[in-house]
């Protein structure tokens, strides 16, 4: 509100009057946020609280709820399937963050240069990011098909043996990561492209005078300057990868067996296949803590990135 003080000073010379005026305006502005606040309380805040409350009950939809305290959490701590789901989530996340970061950096460097049809090609490259995940996942399901799938045909062209893709317990997570890479590398690219556009040109000019090679320019100038943006992209990607649901659910349903069952998939089954609301709520709370930690990390990193700039 500070900047407004100078302009309103003209109309109300007395400082008491002005203070009252500003207070009234702040109250009016608060009224503007009221309707949204009500909606957010109803559909966001209430579910959060309800979930935490329900996690202390043994409740299946249609039966009576029993208060069990922290039992649901204790059970989760020793639940082999849940612990494996956490493992799958971290494995999936690690791959689905690292690979798009590398490819996204490369793509950003390419799109940062001028070349014919750059705008059109960039639009095409970013199309996967906006496409409906379910629609895309269905197409990938058909592409992964071991007998009629086009991917095994591509492998055969390269002289490679056919793969089972998502039908193999060991390959299912890397295969799903392939879809994730295709889907979200564009977002990493866009963030880094924004970063590249903001870099200063002087360091490059002086380094070039010193006879630095293209690789040295990238390694010792671009990469360090781009680091804050890479970190932001990494954290955003991490949050999205941990939350991944649609593509995994459509393509593998967490299978074969439970080989690709992530926390989110496990949660879905507990809640909407077994209607085990108490248990699922406890899963949500644990999941929530993980994601909240990551969200705070994002805000912290964004703050630091601002300083570096």
């Amino acid at each position, binding site marked *: 509100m500070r900047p407004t003080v100078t302009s309103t000073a003209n109309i109300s010379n007395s400082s008491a009057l002005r203070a009252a005026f500003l207070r009234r305006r702040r109250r009016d502005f608060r009224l503007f946020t009221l*309707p949204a606040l009500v909606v957010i309380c109803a559909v966001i805040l209430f579910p959060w609280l309800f979930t935490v409350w329900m996690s202390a009950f043994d409740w299946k939809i249609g039966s009576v709820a029993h208060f069990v305290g922290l039992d649901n959490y204790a059970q989760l701590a020793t639940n082999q399937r849940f612990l494996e789901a956490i493992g799958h989530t971290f494995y999936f996340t690690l791959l689905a963050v690292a690979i798009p970061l590398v490819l996204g950096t490369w793509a950003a460097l390419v799109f940062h240069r001028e070349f014919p049809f750059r705008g059109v090609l960039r639009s095409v490259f970013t199309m996967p990011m906006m496409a409906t995940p379910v629609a895309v996942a269905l197409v990938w399901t058909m592409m992964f098909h071991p007998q009629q799938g086009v991917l095994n045909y591509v492998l055969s062209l390269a002289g490679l043996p056919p793969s089972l893709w998502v039908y193999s317990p060991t390959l299912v997570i890397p295969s799903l990561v392939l879809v994730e890479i295709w889907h979200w590398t564009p977002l990493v690219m866009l963030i880094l492209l924004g970063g590249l556009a903001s870099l200063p040109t002087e360091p490059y000019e002086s380094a070039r005078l010193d006879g630095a090679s293209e690789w040295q320019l990238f390694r010792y100038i671009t990469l360090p300057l781009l680091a804050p943006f890479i970190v932001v992209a990494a954290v955003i990607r991490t949050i999205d990868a941990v939350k991944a649901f649609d593509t995994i659910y459509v393509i593998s349903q967490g299978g074969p067996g439970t080989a690709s069952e992530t926390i989110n998939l496990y949660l879905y089954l507990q809640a909407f296949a077994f209607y085990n609301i108490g248990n699922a709520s406890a899963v949500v709370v644990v999941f929530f803590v993980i994601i909240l930690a990551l969200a705070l990390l994002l805000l912290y990193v964004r703050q630091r990135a601002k300083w570096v700039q």
Partner: protein
Amino acid sequence: MSNAASSVDSISCSAAFRRPARLKRALRKLAFAASIVVIVSPAILVFLWMLSLSLKNEVDNLAYPPVFIPSPPTFRNFVQVFAENSLGLYFWNSIVVSGGATLLALLVGVPAGYGIARLQAHRTTVLILIARMTPALSYLIPLYAVFQFLGLNNTLTALTITHLVITVPIIVYIMAGYFETLPKELEEAALIDGGSVWAMFRYVALPLARPGIVVGTILAFIFSWNNFVFGAVLAGRATRTLPAAVYNVLTFEQLAWGPLAAAAIVVTLPVLLLTVVIQKEIVAGLTHGGVKGA
């Protein structure tokens, strides 16, 4: 980087190194062109394959080696999904739910964004960011229980309310950011002329904020449209949104690839068209907030 390349070339091209330098430059150009192809082709090829599957008959779709170019192309798959799988109904459901949720979010979210921007209440946007990062499933369990209690499960009303989880944070976040970029002087002038805060919002700030509203509306609509899990859980057979219907109805009723690919195109085409319309603004909105659909 473009300046970088050309100036390096001009130095190395001088006199004695002319021929190897020219060869090197040609090679480098070739490598660069190759990397463009490698980067862009996966995106193009998957969408082209989607199109190819949707335009072929079932015999060609299951052929091995695969038939790439439909000859002759057939629109039977598209006709079939609308005629036999009532895709039209689900399309309408999606428009009602995403349209309704976006309109409601605009109604409460635009004034809220304004209030937040003028109060400089940055902490509220933090809360909204955290809300955007929470997995959609976390909201679904409590809301499912409440709708069950109210007898609203399987209705479009319940779905529209649930989609507010997606649309409200996007609109508030984008509008708060947008109003902050607007100069306050004009509003101050209106206030000095005796207008109320409401008049100042309605007649000065709101018209200026039109570009921001357009971007917020389209992004909120896209993310709501793309959402799968709310429809999959809360909707009944007749009230499913398009993504949920394509997954639940089509994949269980039939495993034919042609109709499935045709339905996938029907789901995703509106989004891709909207994306093309405001390509630049979407990019700015997405990378600035680092937010995407739940």
